[in-house]
Structure formats: C-alpha cells, structure tokens
C-alpha cells in the first residue's frame, strides 16, 4: 500500500504547488521612515519618540505613503491662474516640443497596442509594462464600448489617444521608482539603498535638496529639464545608467516622484531644525515650511541662465587665454585644485582637507580634466554651465563675476568670454591627435 500513499502525497503536493502559484500574498503597507541622521543632530527630538511619530504622520499628511504618494494641494494654489497642482508638475510645465517628443515616444513604445486598436481588434491589445493606470483606463474604455455599442463615439481614436497621450500617475511612478531606483537611492531618496554600499561615488541623497548637475545659478534647485536630462543621459563613470529604455512620459513621471521625495526630505529637515520640544509638531509650521520648500522649487526656472546665440568658435588665442586664466593665481586659479597638469592633483587637495569633502560629507576629488570624461555631458555648453555657476554641493565655485587680475595688471570681473576661454582650454586638455599606428597591426590584412 505504501506505493499508493506515495502517489497520494505526490498528487497533493502537485495540487498545493498549483494553488501556491496562483496565490498572491497581501502586499505590506509601506511607510517612509525619518531621516535618522538629522534627528540625531537634534537631541530634543532624538529623545522624544512620540513627537517623531507625529512628524512622520505630519509628513504622510503632506506627501502620502510610498504606495500612495500625493502632494497636498494648498487652497491658494488652486486659486492661481493657471492652477498649480504639484501632482502634475512636469506635465503642466512641458513645452510644446517636449509634449510632441513625449507623444512620439509613447507611440513608439505602444506601437503594438496602437496598431491593434487602429485595426479595430480591441481584444488583442496587450497589457503594457509599468503602466497599470493606463491599463485601467483602457479596460474602462473597453467596458464602456461593450456597454454602449450604439454610442456616437470614435472608439478607435479615443483608444489610440489614450495610449499616445499617456502620462503616469504619481502612484505608478513610485512603483517604477521602487523597481528601478530604490535599490540605490533608498525608499526616502536618502541615497542609502541596499546596493549603495557597493558604489563609488555614492548615489545622490535627495533629502537636502542639493543637486549637482543643474543649469541654475545661486545654488538654486534643478528644473525638471535638468533631472530629466540625467535620466536620459545617465552619468558616465558612475553607477547611474541611462534610462532611455523607458518612455519620456515615464521619465517625466520619475522626475515628479524624485521631486516629491526631495521636497519631503527638505520639509523634514526644516521641521527638525524648527522643532520645539514644548510645542511639538505644529500644523502652522508644517504648512509654512512646506510652502517655503515648494516655492524654492517653483522659483528654479528664474535662476536658469540660458545662453542666447551661437556657441563661439574655439581659437588658439582663446585657448591660450584660457590657459592663462587657469594657471594664474590672480585669474580663475583652477590650478589650486585641478593641478598644473589638469589631473585633479592640485596643492589645495593635499593641504586643505575641506576642499576634498562635499556637502554630503563624502570624500571628493577634483575632476581629472585630461581624461575627457565629464560626468554630465561633454558639450561645450555643459562645461560652460559648470564653470559659470559652479557645481552645487562641491568645492567647485561659481566663476562668473569673480574678481581677476590680468597679466598686464588690469583688474576686472571674469565675464562670459573668459568662461568660454576656460571651457576651450579644458576641452583642449583631453584632445589628442589621431593614432598614427594601426591599433591592431596583426589584424590588418595587407
């Protein structure tokens, strides 16, 4: 009989296995956690766990939870003309060209679905990846079509439009963030995800609201376009890859979510700084700080320094002048950190440890300019922005308007042309002539 009992065990096991495959465990409710580094700095707060819990709840009131992130919309924002809703921040701010690019990118990504809709074959439309809200809208449309077959609506156009004009909800962007970004940047955007410990340089901590690669002056916050560009291009020589395999809409959605995390983090830091152990977490302070941080982000566009007109031509004279500015102590004095050979080995790095630490407290070295590797873009305009406005959070200062003394003794401010001369000199540092010898003589056939 033992054979039959073993068969029964086998059969039960198979049944249990097939049931287990269909079983979806309930998803745990996620919560953001507090910025422990900042709390440790504030002894009152660190000792009051009840108030910490209040702060966490207050931040959830403003920003929701990881599964349901949502900006609280202040009443006066809805009165504005046009209405300001941070939940659709990027979408509302897109230019016509960006909107067209977004549509084109949606049309490419959902080409199969759109083709099926245009052919009138609604049943064979496949579920797109990473776009649950789009799929829900689509199923609703299909249901409406089934319910009202005689309705005077162009179902084909409506369906295709749904896919072409898709823009993700914050909830879906947060899900994408958890799949693609979370493991380095962490669930609060603290740059403390589980893989971050293997990385050098470390992933960005969004919470202080400092971003390196911007096109703004005065250490302003980045515009959407700055964050979008990083997602598109990646940051070469770091672990930040290019995310071009996602659609423009998805990347705009991710910038929205990064902004939510950053604004949440900044509000949190302000709340911890303003903390009064007797009053606790006050709603007025909360809203005041929230408004302050959001306004900083909204004002980012005002600090954007657009360069009008053509990029000037590089000439040997300009490169030579750039070299003078680079090397002279009374000039831009780049040698101080980047070194006489441009390899990032200046005296200051060795003698002044403060020049080798960034604002996040991590060691940082000046860029080796001879490698031709520039983290965010090697276009002249990218280098121009770095020299002109500096790099936020690093010892690299803004050079525009700096007091300089020319070789002939004249004192003046460093102007746009000087910035370009420096850019041309820096670009010339990494350029080499083409190799004279073939790279692989053995593989060259006579």
């Amino acid at each position, binding site marked *: 009989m033992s054979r039959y009992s073993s068969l029964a065990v086998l059969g039960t096991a198979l049944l249990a296995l097939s049931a287990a495959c269909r079983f979806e465990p309930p998803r745990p409710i996620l919560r953001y956690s507090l910025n422990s580094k900042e709390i440790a700095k504030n002894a009152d707060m660190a000792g009051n766990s009840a108030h910490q819990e209040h702060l966490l709840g207050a931040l959830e009131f403003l920003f929701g939870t990881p599964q349901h992130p949502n900006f609280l919309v202040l009443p006066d924002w809805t009165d504005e003309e046009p209405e300001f809703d941070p939940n659709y921040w990027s979408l509302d701010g897109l230019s016509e*060209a960006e909107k067209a690019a977004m549509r084109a990118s949606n049309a490419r990504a959902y080409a199969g679905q759109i083709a099926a809709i245009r052919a009138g074959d609604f049943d064979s439309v496949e579920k797109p990846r990473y776009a649950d809200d789009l799929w829900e809208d689509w199923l609703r449309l299909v249901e409406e079509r089934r319910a009202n077959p005689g309705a005077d609506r162009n179902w084909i156009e409506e369906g295709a439009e749904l896919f072409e004009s898709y823009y993700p909800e914050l909830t879906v962007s947060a899900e994408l963030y958890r799949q693609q970004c979370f493991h380095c940047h962490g669930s609060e955007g603290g740059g403390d995800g589980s893989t971050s410990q293997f990385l050098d340089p470390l992933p960005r901590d969004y919470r202080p609201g400092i971003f390196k690669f911007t096109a703004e002056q005065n250490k302003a916050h980045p515009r959407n*376009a700055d964050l979008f560009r990083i997602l598109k291009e990646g940051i*070469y020589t770091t672990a930040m890859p290019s995310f071009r395999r996602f659609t423009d809409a998805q990347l705009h959605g991710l910038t929205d979510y990064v902004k939510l995390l950053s604004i949440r983090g900044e509000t949190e830091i302000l709340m911890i700084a303003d903390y009064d152990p007797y009053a606790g977490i006050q709603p007025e302070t909360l809203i005041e700080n929230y408004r302050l941080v959001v306004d900083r982000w909204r004002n980012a566009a005002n600090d954007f320094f657009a360069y*009008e007109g053509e990029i000037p031509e590089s000439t040997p004279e300009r490169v030579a002048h750039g070299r003078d500015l680079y090397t002279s102590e009374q000039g831009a004095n780049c040698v101080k950190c980047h070194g006489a050979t441009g390899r990032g080995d200046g005296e200051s790095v060795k003698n002044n440890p403060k020049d080798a630490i960034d604002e996040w407290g991590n060691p940082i070295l000046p860029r080796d300019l001879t490698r031709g590797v520039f983290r965010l873009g090697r276009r002249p305009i990218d280098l121009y922005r770095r020299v002109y406005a500096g790099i936020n959070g690093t010892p690299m200062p803004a050079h525009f308007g700096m007091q300089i003394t020319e070789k002939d003794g004249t004192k003046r401010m460093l102007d746009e042309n000087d910035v370009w001369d420096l850019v041309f000199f820096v670009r010339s540092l*990494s350029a*080499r002539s*083409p*190799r004279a010898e073939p790279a692989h003589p053995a593989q060259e*056939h006579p």
Partner: protein
Amino acid sequence: MQALKHFLLRAFFTLLFLAVPVLGVWTFVKAPAWHVWFPENVSSYGGEIDRLFWLITYMVTVVFLITEGLLIYFFFRYSRRDSSRALYTHGHHTLEMVWTAIPAILLLVVAFSQMGTWAKIKIDLPEDSPYSAAHPMMEVYGSQFDWRARYPDREGNFQGEDVIETPYDIYVPVDTKVVFLLRSRDVLHSFFVPAFRLKQDAVPGMEIPMWFEATKVGDYDLVCAELCGWGHYKMAGKVHVLPGEDYEAWLEGQRNALYSNGSED
C-alpha cells in the same frame, strides 16, 4: 490482482518519464509561436550561424530521442518486483567502442564545419569595408551598467574634442560592413545582438575589433550576455539600423547638437 497493480504502476511511471522527451520536443516545436525563439536574422552572416545551430540541434535531437527511447524502454522492460535480486553484468565491449566512436566523429564534424564561419566572423575582418580596425566606425564601451557608443569627430579621430557619445542607442547604416572596437570600462561584459547573431565578450584592457553587416532597417535589442554585477539586467540597449543617408544625417545632427546652446534642455 497483484500482477495487475504492478503492471499499472509500471505503466504510470513509464508514461511519467515519457513526458520528459515529449514535452521537451514539444516545447522546441512551439517555441517560435510563443516568441521565445530567435528573432529574425538581419545580418549578412547570421544565416551561417543559423545553419550551424540547426546542424547541432538536429544531431542533438536524434541522440536525445534515441537515448530517451532506450531509457523508457529499459525502464518498462527491466522493472522487477521487490523480491528479485540485482544481477551482475560485465557489459559489452563492442557496444562501448561504438558509442564512443560515433560521438567523436560527430564532434569532429561540428568542429570542422564551423571553422570557416568562426574565422569569418571572429578573426578575419572584411576587406571590402570602408572601416577597419585602425579606422573603425565606432567604439562601443560596456560599463556597469550601460552601453555607450563613441563616434569619431569629422577627422576620424576618437581622441578629439568633438567625439560623439550616445548611451543606450547605437546607430549604424544598413548594408554596410560596420567594423567597431569593443571595450569595457570595468569588468567583463558581453555585447549580444540576437538579431545579428553576434555575441562577443568585452574584456577590460582589450580592444576587440568586431564587425557585422545589417541587412534590414529597424531597431534591434542589444543586451549584456555576461553576468557583470548586480545591475546586469539593466544593461540593455538598442541598435538602430538606418538607411545610409539617414545615418549620415543622424551623425551630422549629433555633431551639430554638440554645439547646441542648451536652450532646448
């Protein structure tokens, strides 16, 4: 009654084991319909790779079916009741010689029939190409975790100021023998374009000249085929095969975009 039970049990397990070759072959037959098969070949030498692939697949299928058939036959034929004792057999010398010699011959067939294709794809670079190892069309860098193509400046210099770099997207002209250098910035990666039937490891410290000729305009997947770290799954890309003049226009557009004043971003 006992004999019937024994027969049914034998039959059950024989059929269970028979499911392995049946399901195995069926999976392969259905794979193209399930879209888990090779994509359409769009390179000039992909056909030769496919022919070799089919040669080996047919050989393996025949051997697989014979061995599975024997296994199942023996399973049924020689199953004994609990009471019977194991028996000792010395084996068969001629049989052993035969099943050693046949695979050896088959291996030699495979080894010799692939030599020409291997040399053509991996060793000899095409001579009738506008590009060569000394003057490649582009350099492709693998790094943790993306692919990046570099195109030379107008003078053909890869060390110049105006080199074009594109992450993820690689653009190549159709019907042109494209020679490129494959390099790695950190660890082992593998450049794999299934539609071209081209796979080559990128080795840190080495410049590996590779070539292909795409025969059809379109966008093809590029993946990393060597486990290169925790982000290996992210390391994807697209090879965009463009008509020749579109490729030239794209390259010219990139060269102009390098001197953009940044007003569009």
